């Protein structure tokens, strides 16, 4: 039997060039002493690119994203932000100063991720070069005293030392070990073999993929865009900058980069639970649309639902919201119809869809008219106050307050379509008046008439294009694969030395596994020794470890050489 000697006093320090994988070299706890200007810069750079800083920044990024999910965000839901402002009048301005309603665009958030990006790039790029170097390095020279390695074994063979080494080299080469032989002129008989370079390759893959993920995110940020569009049933929408309500382009995106699709909303259906604990909560949303991928192309029907976005022209269209758009007809003082439009109202209560809105009749002559109102989908009188008991529309009612005067629109200063500037207007009706579908209200002073003709529903769509999404996914998978490789594959070295002994030679085999976390190298080594012995065609007895150690074979070991 082969004796495998495993002393405990030998550590991996035989291979001083081995760094512990997973820890960057510059994560040394010893702080650099800053010297000149360059020294300060270097010190700062080292601090920034240390793994510790990267982890802290990553943690800060996660921490900073929390308000983004707890508070309503301008980018995704501006209506909720407005509601939050009305509900928390003292707190909201403070939160706004801190950018907490637009976290992902806040300067402090940008600072965190830019620093994190710099830190990761500064950490990963040098490591990538180093790993590429390590993956190419040949195994080191065989140490002189192989019996001091964690695994070693020794036996006698009938072959001369050179031949014994040749046989060992052929055997290890056949086992797909990378070999290193003595340099020309070196008379000693040894061979170094190393296996498990896939570990370095995995580590390299992990780091390269990590860079790939960063680049993909950058590509997404530079070339992608996010946009919102509110559209009423029966309306069409073309994906152009002017028809989008909100457009957040990437840094290198211009309006002509938008995918030239168009969408027509035919009908929107929302179903709600009518009984049980979740009464009033939505059970399904379905927006029936026709879309055409480019101008002039034939339109195709599609059912847009939550979690069932439309993929068109590499952009994705998501259904993100809905509401009611009451249809009004307004006649001005001259008796002319000057307004006929389905006007989107914004839900102030998502449970009952009680919605707020304004009607701006800029074309009314001689005086412009404005209305502030509430749309009540399912009206119920609660102590003289109109409330909605259910989100779907059952005999809906609008309650309006009329104003006459200057809407402030002709001065050219842009204003919100959801707000009425009443500073230059006078209120026509002391109390709000309620209208059911088909009812009209004649305004006092012969100012005209408003009719509530009915209602349509609107949906809000989010259009997103992120060219970095797929590359980021691929890179993330590759990074994981690389990480697994570097965890599962171990780098192990086997050395064989042979010194003349009598007619034959004494062959000593030493083995060392670097980071043998998963164990099992001892078994592999024992098997290798058995097979190598068979290859040497010997069944001579083992040499006890102690004996081998006392006759340590080596280049200058003349005693055993004699």
């Amino acid at each position, binding site marked *: 039997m082969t004796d495998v000697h495993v002393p405990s006093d030998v550590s991996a320090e035989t291979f001083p060039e081995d760094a512990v994988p997973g820890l960057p070299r510059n994560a040394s706890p010893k702080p650099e002493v800053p010297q000149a200007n360059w020294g300060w810069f270097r010190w700062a*750079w080292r601090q920034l690119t240390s793994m510790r800083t990267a982890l802290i920044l990553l943690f800060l990024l996660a921490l900073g994203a929390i308000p983004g999910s707890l508070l309503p965000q301008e980018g995704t839901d501006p209506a909720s932000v407005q509601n939050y402002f009305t509900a928390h009048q003292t707190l909201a301005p403070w939160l706004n100063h801190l950018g907490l309603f637009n976290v992902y665009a806040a300067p402090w958030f940008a600072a965190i991720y830019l620093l994190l990006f710099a830190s990761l*790039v500064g950490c990963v790029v*040098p490591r990538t070069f180093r790993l590429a170097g390590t993956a190419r390095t040949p195994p080191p020279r065989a140490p002189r005293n192989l019996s001091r390695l964690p695994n070693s074994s020794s036996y006698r063979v009938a072959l001369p030392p050179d031949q014994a080494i040749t046989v060992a080299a052929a055997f290890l080469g056949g086992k797909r070990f990378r070999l290193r032989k003595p340099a020309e002129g070196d008379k000693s008989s040894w061979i170094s073999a190393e296996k498990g370079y896939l570990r370095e390759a995995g580590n390299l893959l992990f780091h390269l993929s990590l860079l790939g993920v960063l680049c993909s995110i950058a590509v997404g940020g530079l070339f992608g865009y996010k946009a919102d569009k509110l559209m009423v049933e029966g309306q069409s*929408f*073309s994906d152009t900058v002017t*028809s989008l309500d909100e457009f957040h382009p990437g840094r290198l995106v211009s309006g002509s980069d938008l995918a030239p699709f168009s969408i027509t909303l035919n009908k929107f259906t929302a179903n709600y639970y009518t009984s049980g604990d979740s009464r009033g909560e939505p059970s399904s949303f379905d927006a029936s649309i026709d879309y055409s991928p480019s101008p002039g192309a034939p339109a195709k029907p599609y059912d847009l639902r939550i979690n069932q976005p439309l993929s068109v022209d590499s952009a994705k269209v998501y259904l993100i919201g809905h509401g009611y758009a009451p249809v009004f007809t307004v006649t001005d003082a001259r008796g002319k119809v*000057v307004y006929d439009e389905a006007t989107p109202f914004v839900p102030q209560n998502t449970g009952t869809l009680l919605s707020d809105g304004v009607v701006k009749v800029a074309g009314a002559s001689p005086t412009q008219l404005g209305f502030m109102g509430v749309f009540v989908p399912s009206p119920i009188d609660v102590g003289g106050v109109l409330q909605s008991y259910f989100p779907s529309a059952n005999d809906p009612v609008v309650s309006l307050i009329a104003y006459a005067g200057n809407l402030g629109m002709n001065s050219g200063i842009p204003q919100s379509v959801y707000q009425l500037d009443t500073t230059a207007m006078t209120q026509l009706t002391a109390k709000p008046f309620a209208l059911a579908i088909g009812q009209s209200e004649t305004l006092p002073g012969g100012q005209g008439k408003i009719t509530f003709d009915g209602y349509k529903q609107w949906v809000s769509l989010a259009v997103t294009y992120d060219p970095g999404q797929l590359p980021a996914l691929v890179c993330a998978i590759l990074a994981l694969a690389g990480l697994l490789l570097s965890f599962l594959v171990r780098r192990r070295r086997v050395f064989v030395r042979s010194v003349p002994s009598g007619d034959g030679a004494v062959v000593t085999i030493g083995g060392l596994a670097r980071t043998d976390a998963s164990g099992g190298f001892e078994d592999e080594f024992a098997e290798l020794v058995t097979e190598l012995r068979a290859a040497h065609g010997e069944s001579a007895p083992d040499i006890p470890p102690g004996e081998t150690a006392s006759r340590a074979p080596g280049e200058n070991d003349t005693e055993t050489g004699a």
Partner: protein
Amino acid sequence: MPPRLIKKKRRAAVSLAAVAAVLLAGGLTMAFSRGGGLPAGETYVDGNPQAVLYAPGHRAQVPEFSGRTLTGSPLSFATYRGRVVVLNFWGSWCPPCRSEGPTLAALSSKYSHAKVSFLGVDVEDTPVNAEAFEQGFGISYPSLNDPGQAVAQVISSVVPITATPTTLVIDPTGRVAGAIFGTATYSVLNEMISKVAA
């Protein structure tokens, strides 16, 4: 390790870091700054960066488009060939469009006898609201009814229509000779039309 080697390695690390920092800073600067000088063949009217004149040879051909006017009659852009066309994107809901309404009304009557035609594209609007707008400002030239912005989408392939209002001055060969991205003022649009029609 000999001290010289350490020094060498450190110097290498520092220069690598410096190169990385410069690349990063450069990339960020590039990413966060847009545009630069004016492209060849383009001049500003009155130094206004929102009013651009394109020299002949630098004018983009406007793709064909057609539709129905607010009054329901069919209209094709192709029939305007041979005339200077002032193409204005507007909506009755849009305050800047309301502020430039008098300008368009005045200039369209000033150039009514020359080889200049005015054409509106009414976006995201209803015919009733649009008619009240036109009557209010005394605008008599036709407008295409384009609630879904199909025309803007077609034209965006050659000129970025990034805001409502946008006004294009198109030469008799159907190429974009001038563009006002935003509110048109009387002096700027007048200068543009007279230069293109000259």
